[in-house]
């Protein structure tokens, strides 16, 4: 089978010719996609792309470093608002995006410092408080447009302005690929191994010479940076931001994506973001699902209320969260690995 002969073969970015072919095919299909798909699906794909970026970052924090964050929507909000404000003051979009993400990362450091001494429930509540505070504070400041929010007119590059769906799709695709590759490289480096050591045992890691304080803060900063990038892109994608979008529910959705996809894996982040985003978009049109839809409709009318039907997505997401944690702690990625091993070793 595939034996590794030297170290460099083991640390290659893509292992084996098969994987290289698949990666190339994926890239090609991602590039071709917006030209053949209807525009709504291009929008959906862009939305999924934005969520993947957040989840990649959150997964580094939650899955690889083992810290919990219930306030990630706060970082996304910071990224979105800073990017939009800088852009409207005349700075070109890419610069504004990176600056927004850097400011989000600074907030990540600020949140990371008290988080050094906190664990478990205390960390959960501290990050939760951070997320809620950001939402409330943004809503009260006139510079940020208060509760009315700000409208965004595309991404301004100085010489051109990107506004139509296909262009925005590519605007999101490029940072998405960069951040995916970056996440994979971070996790294979010394830093990534330090993160995992902290996750597995705080004390053992520091005994082995890992600077726990430094790497925990770094993990918060990296993950906030990802969220900031995603925030800026999201603002361009939907063309409008207001504080209500960045609420606790959004943070929980991001966490759900991480858990459903698979803690601590890149592929899992992608799976989770795709599945949960599609599930949430389906909320408005749940009665249109082929066979289940009419069944739900009948059930709603007989026992529940018709108007409450979108709430079914909550039940499904919640159940998915619980069942995945209970039965398959590695999430969809775990299922994927199991299938792969089953077929590889078939018929044994």
């Amino acid at each position, binding site marked *: 089978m595939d034996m590794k002969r030297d170290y460099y073969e083991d640390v290659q970015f893509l292992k084996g010719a098969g994987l290289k072919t698949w990666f190339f095919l994926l890239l090609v299909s991602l590039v071709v996609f917006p030209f053949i798909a209807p525009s709504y699906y291009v929008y959906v794909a862009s939305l999924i792309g934005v969520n993947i970026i957040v989840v990649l970052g959150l997964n580094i924090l939650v899955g690889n470093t083992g810290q919990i964050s219930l306030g990630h929507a706060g970082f996304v909000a910071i990224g979105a608002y800073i990017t939009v404000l800088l852009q409207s003051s005349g700075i070109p979009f890419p610069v504004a995006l990176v600056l927004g993400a850097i400011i989000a990362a600074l907030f990540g450091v600020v949140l990371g410092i*008290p988080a050094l*001494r906190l664990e478990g429930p205390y960390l959960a509540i501290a990050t939760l408080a951070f997320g809620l505070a950001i939402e409330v504070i943004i809503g009260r400041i006139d510079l940020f447009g208060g509760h009315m929010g700000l409208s965004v007119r595309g991404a301004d590059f100085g010489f051109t302005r990107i506004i139509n769906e296909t262009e925005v799709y590519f605007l999101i695709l490029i940072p998405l690929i960069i951040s995916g590759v970056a996440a994979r490289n971070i996790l294979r480096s010394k830093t990534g191994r330090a993160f995992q050591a902290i996750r597995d045992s705080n004390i053992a890691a520091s005994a082995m010479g890992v600077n726990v304080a430094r790497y925990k803060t770094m993990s918060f900063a990296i993950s906030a940076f990802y969220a900031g990038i995603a925030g800026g892109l999201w603002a361009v994608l939907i063309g409008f931001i207001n504080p209500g979008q960045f609420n606790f529910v959004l943070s929980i959705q991001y966490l759900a994506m991480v858990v459903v996809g698979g803690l601590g894996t890149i592929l899992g982040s992608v799976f989770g973001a795709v599945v949960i985003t599609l599930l949430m978009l389906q909320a408005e049109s749940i009665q249109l699902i082929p066979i289940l839809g009419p069944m739900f409709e009948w059930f709603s009318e007989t026992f529940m*209320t018709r108007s409450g039907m979108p709430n*079914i997505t909550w039940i499904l997401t919640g159940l998915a*969260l619980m069942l995945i944690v209970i039965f398959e702690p590695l999430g969809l990625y775990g299922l994927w690995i199991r299938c792969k091993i089953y077929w590889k070793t078939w018929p044994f």
Partner: protein
Amino acid sequence: MLQIIISGIVVGSIYALMGLAMGIIYKASEVPNFAQGEMAMISSYIAFVILAVHGYGFLFAFTGAIAFAFLLGIFFEFVFIRRAKNPNILSLIIITLGFQMVLYGIAGWKFGSDQRRLSLPFSDRKTYNFGDVVISELGLATILAAILLMLVVWWFLSSTKTGIAMKATQQNSMAAKINGIPTNKIMSLSFGISSIVGAVAGLFIAPVTTLDPNMMWDPLLKGFAAAVLGGFGNLPGIILGGYILGITENIYGYYISVEFKSVFALLVIVLVLWVKPSGLFSRHHTKKV
């Protein structure tokens, strides 16, 4: 001033009850139960259904809701928490978040997002005067019910055999098992009791706000803040934390700004965690390897 403190004590009672409910579960299983608020919300809906839809009396509705809350807590522990494979805190937190979503979805599905009114026999219009302090009948009932419930919980934990078994399980579940305590049952019981405490808080806050699926979100957060303030493992500390939070929040809202009143609790959490990572009233314990 005294008036503000009294109304602070009324809300503080609710916060203290929510915090107490979370504290009981935290002591038993080391997990902050994010589903606590939604469990209380569903129980209040049960009271509403018995009271308004079927038209039974208040006492029946109250006991019905309490019994339902108890069963819901046991159900949650038995069906979900206990099934988790080699649980760490992160996965348990995620299970409670998932259960919260499910309950929220069920409530929204069944009752829509319309706001309903749960009417208790205590009105919030009828008031009593003590000197120059005015307190509504509902406020008085809330304070009394909270204190009564706290006393009952305290009596239960310190004087009954089951309560002592609960304490033993919390301190060292392996040793408790060796001594013949059915630790699994005790765990379920902890969830049931905590759910009851939360449901009482829900029943007393429902007439003040309105009955809708989002109603317990704010009390849950404040209960959480109270628990952090007092230190999660320390039940009297949590109760004290709830009252401190209620009173200071009201003073803050009166003298400084009503607008940022909701952020105040968050600020308190962050400040307390910054200074004392395990809360005000509990000692910081370092984990052994």
